[in-house]
């Protein structure tokens, strides 16, 4: 199998996560932007989730619906295909990114158009659709405000929900002023970094585009099998413009986005907005079934590694993900490393379990992703579909190839732990050599002593103390407490 493409340039893949993160963590502007933004959304989410007395019940329902659907995915996909076709749409199946890109490019070419507008979509980012279309002479215009910022800035998204989360207002103003003119209507003169002025500049720039473009490309948050309906949740209304104005609509959607019925959707319309934007309800929910008169609708169903993930008993829970990004917003590692360090359009905790599963662990980066977590469990706690991210991380770690020195160290530790006598001997040796342990350790262990002191090694281990005293703690000295 060719390597699954996940919409990120080669440069981010050359190094492992620790090296990428070490660079990012020194960028104080980035740290500040991310800290401020993630903490704001985190607080909003916590407040609206606390409002619902049955949140845990909803969460378990969301999990159960997704698990049921994934177990019967073949059946529901066929039901969906039949329903979409009956409603006048066309369904295409894409095994991987290349196939999906080719299908979309052919469909656009058949319309004779060279420009398309896009609704914010993770699936099209995952397959690198914009770049593939550009190679075919088709320009794709992002219409989501944050995606627009990323596109104009020649940048990469760093967050699922807020792709430009690493940018602040001043940076956005600069990007608009310098680049908008190259892509269409320029930014107004004397643009300030007032959020309202920035939004107005984007609105004027985009409005022209909506009125003139004949082809739109979207993803979908959900697909309802019983009626063949696609659902998009958004905040700005730009998505709805794309979904209604153009003559041809092409939607690229991962096969796991399916829900059996409208009743199931009810659960997710509560889970998703509260988890992602921290709102009770998102401003715009668009649904469409097949094609409306005078319009053409194509649905491209994307696998791109998903059936492989489905085959893994532990890892498959990652396919429940509804891309709310709550796990990113609470992750202390993401907050400090930023999204680009993950080398995939899926950053943060979900990226750390999804990317290595979709793409395999062939590169240094992909091998390092399952380790990009302290296993603090904050992600699992907030995940609206209860994906046990730490469990999947640990499982992936067991499947990863380990460095030789580490293998030897772990084998030695295992040998010692297998027999209590060996542990006692090792402890006594440590106690005797305690004076010779340097303040700064050499080699890989310097990673500890660069910023932290080592604890003092006590003269006597607990087990030796127990042997000597029988565990009697009366007035004897409490040894080894000084640290």
């Amino acid at each position, binding site marked *: 199998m060719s390597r699954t493409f996940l919409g990120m340039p080669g440069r981010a893949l050359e190094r492992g*996560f*620790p090296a990428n*993160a*070490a660079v990012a*963590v020194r960028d104080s502007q980035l740290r500040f932007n991310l800290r401020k933004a993630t903490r704001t959304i985190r607080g909003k989410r916590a407040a609206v989730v606390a409002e619902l007395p049955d949140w845990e019940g909803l969460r378990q329902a969301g999990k159960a619906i997704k698990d049921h659907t994934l177990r019967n995915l073949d059946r529901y996909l066929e039901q969906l295909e039949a329903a979409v076709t009956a409603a006048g749409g066309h369904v295409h199946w894409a095994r991987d990114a290349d196939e999906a890109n080719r299908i979309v490019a052919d469909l656009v070419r058949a319309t004779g158009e060279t420009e398309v507008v896009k609704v914010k979509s993770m699936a099209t980012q995952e397959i690198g659709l914009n770049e593939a279309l550009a190679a075919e002479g088709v320009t794709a215009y992002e219409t989501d405000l944050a995606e627009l910022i990323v596109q104009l800035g020649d940048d990469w998204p760093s967050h699922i929900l807020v792709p430009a989360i690493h940018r602040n207002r001043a940076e956005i103003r600069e990007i608009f002023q310098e680049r908008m003119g190259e892509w269409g209507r320029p930014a107004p003169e004397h643009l300030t970094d007032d959020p309202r002025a920035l939004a107005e500049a984007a609105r004027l720039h985009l409005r022209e585009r909506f009125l003139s473009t004949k082809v739109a490309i979207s993803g979908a948050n959900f697909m309802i099998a019983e009626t063949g309906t696609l659902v998009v949740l958004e905040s700005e209304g730009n998505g709805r413009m794309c979904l209604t104005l153009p003559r041809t609509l092409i939607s690229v959607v991962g096969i796991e986005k399916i829900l059996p019925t409208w009743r199931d959707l009810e659960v997710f319309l509560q889970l998703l907005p509260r988890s992602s934007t921290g709102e009770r309800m998102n401003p715009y929910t668009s649904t469409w079934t097949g094609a409306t008169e005078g319009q053409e609708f194509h649905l491209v169903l994307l696998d791109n590694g998903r059936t492989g993930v489905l085959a893994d008993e532990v890892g498959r829970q990652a396919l429940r993900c509804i891309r709310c990004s709550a796990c990113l917003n609470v992750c*202390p*590692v993401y907050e*400090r*490393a930023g999204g680009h360090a993950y080398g995939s359009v899926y950053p943060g905790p979900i990226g750390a379990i999804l990317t290595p599963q979709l793409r395999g662990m062939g590169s240094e980066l992909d091998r*390092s992703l399952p*380790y*990009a*977590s*302290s*296993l*603090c*469990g*904050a992600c*699992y706690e907030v995940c609206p579909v209860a994906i046990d991210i730490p469990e999947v991380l*640990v499982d992936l*770690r*067991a*499947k*990863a190839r*380990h460095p030789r020195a580490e293998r030897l160290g*772990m084998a030695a*530790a*295992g040998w010692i*732990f*297998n027999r*209590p006598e060996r*542990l006692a001997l*090792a*402890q006594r040796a440590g106690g005797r050599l305690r004076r010779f342990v340097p303040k700064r350790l050499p080699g890989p*262990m310097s*990673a*500890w002593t*660069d*910023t*932290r*002191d080592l*604890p003092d*090694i*006590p003269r*006597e*281990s*607990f*087990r030796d*103390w*127990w*042997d000597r005293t029988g*565990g009697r*703690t009366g007035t004897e*000295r*409490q*040894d*080894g*407490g*000084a*640290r």
Partner: protein
Amino acid sequence: MRVALFITCVNDTLFPGTGKATVTLLRRLGVDVAFPRAQTCCGQMHVNTGYREEGVRLARHFAEVFGGYDAVVVPSGSCGAMVREQYPRLAPAATGEVVPKVYELSEFLIDVLGVTDVGAYFPHRVTYHPTCHSLRGLHLGDRPLRLLRNVRGLELVPLPGAEECCGFGGTFAVKNPAISAAMCADKVGNVMATGAEVLCAADNSCLMHIGGTLTRQKTGVKIMHLAEILAATEAAEVTATIERSAP
């Protein structure tokens, strides 16, 4: 009730004072705790670094050593969480019986013995870091805080951002040192903001990480395991303090 102490390899080797404090405390409360000599390590480091087979071996060993007891007390949130969360996945048949009998120290004191006032005396300003595995793994909730609030003389000050990870994460600390250190720096900043003399937690591995930074930065803030504070009394406090400040 036959009660065993699972000291954990980190406490056994590096923090024997925590083990002694746990024994002192339990005996003071009338529990004759045993220390099965054959115990070694719960296997957390191996499993969480990706060496599952070794973890399975150690899980089975744990079940053999502690199988005959009615309760096993662990003065470590993360080792307790390892047993409760991961053993059922690693070795369900072998560990099924022992897992429900394993209690983290504050669980044992409150849920099994039914005490929140353990008769301790510790006249210092203390802040408590709940540690991830105690909080989100074992769901200890406010048990440790209830115990600390009942310690005479102790002034408990809330830690800002308490629920955030300190950045230890076992081998994470050496595999991702830059992020780990950045997380710890924020934790240390929060500890310093409390003005506490002592940082307390139910887990020495996290304390070793935060404490290593506290001493490197010469902050003067001491780290103490929950057991050590709960074991302190008017008589024992003096010795502990003298020992702690010894070079």
